[in-house]
């Protein structure tokens, strides 16, 4: 006697098939199931449902299980060993399936470029992503926009110029992770999530720097061609690791010092707040860039040569450009000087010299952490763009 599933008054047009499917799941193809119930259209429903599902309908509410379900999953595989295991190679055929999901073969393959763990991974990515989520802030309330603003006109001009420069840099820093994550296999989801958080961070930075620039005026500063060339060379880097290295390790790494510098010399609370908050986010971006680059070098020390070549290539591309525009540099001096007396300007000038030295030192430290010998780290840091980012 075949097993019986009782649907009571349930029809197949309001969920009855779930009970039948559940009963059939314990049977092998070719085995029978009897359905009982008193829905008036049960037999009509059942015959039509069996036909559509590839089961055989026999009279008197008997279903012979068909092979379709078994065939559908015959060649199924999991996307990686388990949800918690990050595969060394993520197959394009896994598509958008969740890591660890059982995948029916036959779907369209994913069109992404980075599907190798060691090309994109850093062990710290999950922690950094958690930290990114825990450290979100609201631009509307985290910055003291309303505080007393008594900034001298000349200093305000310098602040507006610096903010104008920061906005264009942050726009590049937004577009790069956005491009990277669109080309990344989602199997490496913590990296993807982190890049998404990074892009969202940069979007917020664009907002707060713009808002600070326009706090007292309605006109922004200038944008130099050399600075934009420098940023364009970052956008042009197609390789995941090289883009991460140039942007996060060298560029955003240098920006940590720059943002601290502006915060220290900020003429008002709003300027101090925006640079402090952005700096906190940037530190996370730098941490991933450094950890990822170090991971790649650990898996293949020969990668150091590629990293160095990328810096040299960028240097030669930018050799004929002005790099940082003079207006930005001068604005940093004025900001640090705080007034136009010769003594103050001398002090400001010295402060900017110290800033550049600190940036250089920071870059060398990170390069050594990644695996470069000290003398090479010094040489590579010296080739970094004059535009800071």
């Amino acid at each position, binding site marked *: 006697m075949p097993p019986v599933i009782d649907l009571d008054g349930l029809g197949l047009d309001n969920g009855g098939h779930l009970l039948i499917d559940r009963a059939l799941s314990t049977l092998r193809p070719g085995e029978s199931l009897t359905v009982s119930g008193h829905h008036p259209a049960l037999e009509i*429903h059942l015959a*039509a449902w069996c*036909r559509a599902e*590839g089961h055989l309908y026999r009279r008197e509410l008997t279903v012979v299980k068909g092979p379709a379900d078994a065939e*559908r999953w015959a*060649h199924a595989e999991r996307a990686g060993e388990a949800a918690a295991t990050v595969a060394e190679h993520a197959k394009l055929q896994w598509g958008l399936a969740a890591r660890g999901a059982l995948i029916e073969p036959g779907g369209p393959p994913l069109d992404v470029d980075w599907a190798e763990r060691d090309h994109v991974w850093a062990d710290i990515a999950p922690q950094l992503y958690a930290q990114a989520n825990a450290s979100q802030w609201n631009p509307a309330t985290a910055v003291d926009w309303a505080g007393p603003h008594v900034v001298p006109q000349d200093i305000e001009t310098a602040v507006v110029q610096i903010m104008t420069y920061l906005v264009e840099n942050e726009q590049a820093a937004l577009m790069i992770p956005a491009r990277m994550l669109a080309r990344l296999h989602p199997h490496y989801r913590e990296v993807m999530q982190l890049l998404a958080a990074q892009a969202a961070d940069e979007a917020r930075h664009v907002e707060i720097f713009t808002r600070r620039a326009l706090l007292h005026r309605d006109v922004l500063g200038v944008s130099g061609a050399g600075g934009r060339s420098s940023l364009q060379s970052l956008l042009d880097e197609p390789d995941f690791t090289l883009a991460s290295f140039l942007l996060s390790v060298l560029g955003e790494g240098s920006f940590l010092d720059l943002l601290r510098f502006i915060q220290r010399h900020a003429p008002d609370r709003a300027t101090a707040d925006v640079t402090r908050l952005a700096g906190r986010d940037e530190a996370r971006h730098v941490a991933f860039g450094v950890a990822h680059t170090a991971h790649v070098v650990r898996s293949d020390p020969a990668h150091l040569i590629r990293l160095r070549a990328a810096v040299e290539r960028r240097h030669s591309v930018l050799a004929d450009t002005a790099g940082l525009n003079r207006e930005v540099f001068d604005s940093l001096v004025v900001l640090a000087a705080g007034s136009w007396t010769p003594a103050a300007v001398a002090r400001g000038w010295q402060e900017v010299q110290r800033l550049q030295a600190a940036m250089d030192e920071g870059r060398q430290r990170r390069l050594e952490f990644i695996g470069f010998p000290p003398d090479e780290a010094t040489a590579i840091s010296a080739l970094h763009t004059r535009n800071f980012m």
Partner: protein
Amino acid sequence: MSRELILGAVAYDPKVVTIWSGFRAWFRERGVDFDFVLYSQYERQVEALVDGAIDLAWNSPLAWIRAGRLARRRGLDVRAVAMRDTDRDLTSVVVVRADSDLHTLDDLRGRTVATGAIDSPQSTLLPLALLAERDVKVRRHDVGVGLHGDHIGGERDAAKALRAGEVDAATVIDGNLLLFGREGVLPSGSVRVIGQTAPYDHCNLTAGPGVNASEFVQLLLSMSYADDQARPLLDLEGLKQWLPGRTDHYEGLAATDFYTQDGALNAAGYRP
């Protein structure tokens, strides 16, 4: 590679292009040269098949009947060489609102019945044959005329008319009774079945006069739902398994006078 076979199909939905392009690639990878052409309606496709302009046709049940009659008139023969597992033993039903006072087909005498398009076997011709002699008023829903009921729109409109109280009964295929219940067009429990046709077969793959399609058909029948490349196509085309063609379940439709015995169009107002 064998001689190229040309199959005709009716473009009742954009997915038809996806389906047959996929099948074409699948066959060509296996050494059978095959291509397809699309028709806007079945009548033209049937004529092309009998004229030899195409070798095979994916035919509706009406198209199969007409192809046979046109061929016979010329002393030729067409053959049903394959069909889907879902093409066998379908039924159509006559439904009324659950709270209505109608309980048998005889109760429909003088009442209004909503059907699908003029050329829909499942939603018009076969159920109306079931209701013959009962003098019902027919409210047809002519959506996709020429597509022989492949377009679900007319059937859905008939169901909606029943639910709206505009008609006393509606005629739908059994699978759509289930579908409309699930979609909420005819919410579960809102209708009652008062009549059902005998089982009949639906589409088949028809080989034209003198066409040797044995290699093609053999390969078609070997197509497996376990084949990851074929399965999405089978899902789109609505089957789990191809079966050999059979021709003894078309009598009910053949008995209607939709075509003359010579295969001429015979239904008043039918303009595909």
